């Protein structure tokens, strides 16, 4: 047998194994509180057309019970933190004696904000995440201390901002002034970091649906963030998740809030264009 046919043999084995033990994404629909319809699979955005046809929420890759928890706010442990953030939304803080509500009105007025973040902010001359926008308000409009990028106050507030946009399609802009940041994020997505030399794409583009040890790999979409994880029983910020995934390649990770992770979040966000905002989600 020559190298080529041996390689082919290995491929055939791979195909047989894969079809024998395929862990398919669930065939299920998500409607929250019997009311908010969530698009958990849809046609891939045009910029992904040469690598995949369909984009899917991580929700489809979780077990029946975990999926069920997200369909009712009374069962979703992440909603407690949304309630806490609602109190903070209405509470004055900082030297200006202002609350978020003083400028923005009810939190529900913020519907439609989450789906377009990260985005290029003209006044700042850079791409900003929701966290950066929140801290800009705190520092410059309220005269309050910045929150830690992935700290409790911050992640709770991003959960509130996500929750009021649930069901709206993610719509992150990738062109115009955001384009160079988007390109940078794309490059990071395909870079094989660390001693294991694995890229985001190795796991979440080439192998979603497959088991990597006990984990059922999803597409690594971020429409569900922040995510309440049963594993650590708290809300997890999106860039904390990135940090964990990069660390698991035996790499030196980037810091949450770093330019690299902001660019990566813009890029990964855009891979989910068309999926519904569903944060705070429930995951393993």
């Amino acid at each position, binding site marked *: 047998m020559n*190298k080529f046919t041996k390689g082919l043999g290995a491929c055939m084995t791979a195909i047989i194994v*894969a079809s024998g033990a395929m862990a398919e994404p669930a065939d299920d629909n998500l409607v929250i509180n019997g009311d908010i319809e969530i698009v958990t699979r849809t046609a891939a955005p045009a910029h992904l057309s040469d690598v995949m046809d369909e984009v899917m929420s991580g929700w489809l890759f979780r077990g029946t019970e975990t999926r069920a928890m997200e369909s009712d706010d009374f069962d979703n442990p992440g909603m407690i933190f949304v309630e806490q953030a609602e109190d903070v939304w209405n509470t004055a803080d900082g030297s200006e004696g202002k609350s978020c509500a003083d400028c923005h009105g009810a939190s529900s007025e913020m519907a439609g904000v989450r789906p377009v973040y990260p985005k290029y902010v003209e006044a700042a001359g850079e791409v900003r995440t929701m966290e950066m926008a929140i801290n800009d308000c705190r520092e410059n409009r309220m005269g309050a201390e910045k929150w830690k990028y992935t700290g409790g106050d911050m992640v709770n507030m991003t959960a509130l901002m996500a929750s009021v946009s649930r069901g709206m399609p993610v719509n992150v802009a990738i062109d115009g002034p955001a384009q160079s940041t988007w390109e940078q994020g794309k490059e990071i997505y395909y870079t094989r970091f*660390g001693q294991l*030399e694995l890229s985001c794409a190795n796991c979440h583009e080439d192998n979603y649906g497959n*088991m990597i040890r006990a984990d059922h790999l999803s597409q690594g979409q971020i429409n569900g963030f922040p995510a309440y994880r049963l594993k650590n029983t708290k809300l997890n910020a999106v860039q904390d998740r990135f940090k964990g995934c990069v*660390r698991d390649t035996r790499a030196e*990770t980037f810091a949450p809030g770093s330019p690299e992770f902001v660019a990566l979040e813009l890029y990964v966000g855009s891979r989910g264009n068309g999926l519904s905002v569903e944060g705070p989600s429930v995951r393993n």
Partner: protein
Amino acid sequence: MKISILALVASVGLAANANAADIAPTAVTYVDGAVEASLTGTAGNPEEGAKVVGSKQLGNCVACHEVSALPDIAFQGMIGPALDGAGSRWSEADLRGIVANAKMMFEGTMMPSFYKDTGYIRPGKAYTGKAADDTLGPLLTAQQVEDVVAYLATLKD
């Protein structure tokens, strides 16, 4: 002496004690992805190899591969082909090449290179997320690679 003990502790799960007689990771010769010469000159021990294949702290090959001969290991992955029959499909030299640096046999493969210690992008200090320091060694020692190869050779159809 102190220094080498420290290094050993710091690299638990990594290649621990490299032997002077071992072929260094950068000195391995690949021919069509295969490595003819033993990395250590000492025959591999298949029982030790099985441990490396199954252990999360060592090779963790089962993260990606199923091995029916190791039924006690739960949650075997399905990223790569099942290793059943690998010893019939491949020669020992092929297996050594695949384990040491699979990218030489399968261009662009997702499989990590287990006997390599340079050329990484942002290598970390194991799974801490911090930058690697000068204790960075290959994922497996030369002898562990030999042990794994000896184990894989027992996986016949």
